[in-house]
């Protein structure tokens, strides 16, 4: 356990060190800071932990330094969450992320480095703490005006409990060919591969999938992505279909409607996974997020969020929840 915590601490120190290093490397660059505050309140229903009203406050800070060839951005958010039910429950989530991008002027290559960590923690149930830390390199090679190759990869560490004794380290790699039909339509085709190792047990597995994603940007935004995952290895052997969609439309000058969703299906003949065998997916899972945004002022938005989530595992465990949240977004520092 100590080793895991040490690894995590080292990783975070590395990210911080990198941020400081690059900050000092480009001291005379343009800087843009954003600070946003979001407050939400609503209801959680279904058979989740503790159904009831929820109040959530999100503080998000984004800072971007920009030089002609380099961009360095740090994004972090902290969200304390209070569930007001039969017994008081509060939890918090912290998401820190560092993005660094550079362009090589002489070559049509673009290089990006993302590093970050996310913690979801609850005050009472330490077993529900989830942590993730990841570093990723993303490169872009412009092959022509319309065709681009996007190879990328990194290291990801996930911890499924507050004690940090259940964890998975994985190495995801992917290579995508991006083709722009015109200014409005583009398609991405490629393959993703991920090798994962269970901390402590020495067990390992691999999952891979073809990737296809279509995007349309006209009077409205639309994107649809599909992946067919194949799992091999000691942990789990199976397949799953994943569909991701994203829709955005402006109803009028002030009102926008945004819809995001992710649907995971298992082939019918296949046995559903148990919760313990969870690696990076959770059996059959669907979630749909709908957000209506009203522009109040240049700096602030009022929004309504509708969230629907549904999980299904082996041994008849089913879970679904829906939330209606009303919130206010305030951005300090300009958009």
């Amino acid at each position, binding site marked *: 356990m100590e080793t895991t915590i040490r690894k995590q601490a080292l990783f975070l120190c590395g990210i911080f060190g990198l941020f400081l290093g690059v900050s000092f490397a480009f001291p005379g660059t343009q800087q843009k800071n954003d600070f946003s505050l979001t407050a939400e309140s609503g209801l959680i229903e279904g058979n989740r932990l503790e159904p009831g009203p929820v109040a959530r406050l999100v503080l998000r800070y984004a800072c971007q330094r920009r030089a002609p060839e380099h961009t360095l951005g740090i994004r972090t958010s902290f969200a304390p969450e209070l569930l007001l039910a039969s017994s008081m429950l509060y939890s918090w*989530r912290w998401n820190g992320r560092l993005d660094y991008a550079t362009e090589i002027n002489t070559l049509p290559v673009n290089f990006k480095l993302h590093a970050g960590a996310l913690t979801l923690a609850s005050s009472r149930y330490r077993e529900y703490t989830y942590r993730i830390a990841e570093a990723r390199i993303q490169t872009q090679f412009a092959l022509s005006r319309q065709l681009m190759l996007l190879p990328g990869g990194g290291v*990801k560490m996930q911890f499924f409990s507050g004690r940090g004794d259940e964890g998975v380290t994985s190495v995801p790699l992917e290579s995508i060919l991006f083709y722009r039909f015109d*200014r409005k339509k583009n398609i991405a085709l490629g393959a993703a591969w991920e090798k994962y190792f269970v901390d402590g047990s020495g067990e390992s597995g691999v999952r891979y999938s073809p990737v296809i994603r279509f995007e349309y*940007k006209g009077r409205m935004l639309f994107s649809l*992505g599909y992946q067919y995952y194949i799992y091999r290895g000691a942990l789990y052997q199976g397949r799953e279909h994943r569909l991701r969609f994203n829709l955005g439309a402006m109803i009028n000058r002030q009102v926008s409607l*945004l819809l995001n969703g992710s649907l995971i299906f298992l082939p019918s003949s296949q046995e559903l996974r148990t919760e313990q065998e969870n690696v990076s997916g959770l059996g059959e899972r669907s979630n749909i997020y709908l957000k209506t945004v009203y522009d109040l002022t240049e700096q602030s938005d009022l929004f309504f969020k509708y969230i629907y989530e549904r999980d299904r595992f082996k041994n008849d465990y089913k879970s679904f929840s829906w939330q209606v949240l009303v919130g206010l977004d305030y951005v300090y520092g300009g958009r």
Partner: protein
Amino acid sequence: MKKIYFILILAGIALAQTSASVEREWSDLNRGYHQLKEAYDRERAQLDTLLARIDTQKENPNRDEASLKVLMAEGLQKSALVEKTYEELARMEKRLLRLRKILYRYYSARIDSLSGVLLKTEPQNRSAMEKKLALLRSRRLYVSPWIPEISFNLKLIHGISLKNADSTERKIYRAYLEGALRDVDSSLTVIRQKREELTGLVKLEQKSKTFLADIEDVYAFDDVYAGGASPETAGKTEAANTYTGNVDRNGTPEEPSPFIFSLSRLNRILLKVDGRSTVDGNVDSLSTESYLQALGEGQKQLQQLRNDILSRLKGN
């Protein structure tokens, strides 16, 4: 201190001379280029006629081999000449492009510095300075990329002076300027509409990204390549080269700065908006942000042209 002033004055004179010589070279070369282009077109037409004659002779069963040989030799000679003229044209084109860039930068720098000085100038001296500024702006427009498709002649507009024209000329010029003004105004209206539409789209994209980031709180970086890695940044560099027109014959992008928006490209965008022209692949390859930036730059330049036309209409 005196020495420094002396050096500065000398440097100023040297710089002024340089810009004057560049202007002269640009003007001479431009004239030469158009003359050579005419000669090239003429030679090309002659070569086409010659080739047609050779083809007719070849198809004739009772052809005279000796005269065919003469024709072919003549064709070969003509073809070599056309090739040579083309090479010369390409060389001049390259040099013109370079000079145009130098002059554009020079005029832009002068305009920027004069605009700064103008604010601090006393009102009585302002008029002369404003005239100088207008002259510099019209010169800059002249070295901006050529507008072949717009229905009015930019060169002619810059040559019009109502002050020195007689009554008939004034009438014709006025009608021409008013027509050009209407054309510019209609283009500006289309650009404004298009910009408004695109600004909405960019805003929507931003909201969508924020929403995705909220959801990614759960998925962290699971979706980096699917959502966040759209090649906007790389597209910008590429697009900058695309709409500045700074791409040479081999397709190698040249230095993209200073940002010169090609009005001819803008013209294509406008025509495309109206559905009057064929699809321009290069315009389509721009990312939304770059396209918006391009429209903004185009609007600025058209606004400048509008001011120029207005000032000529007033007789300045």
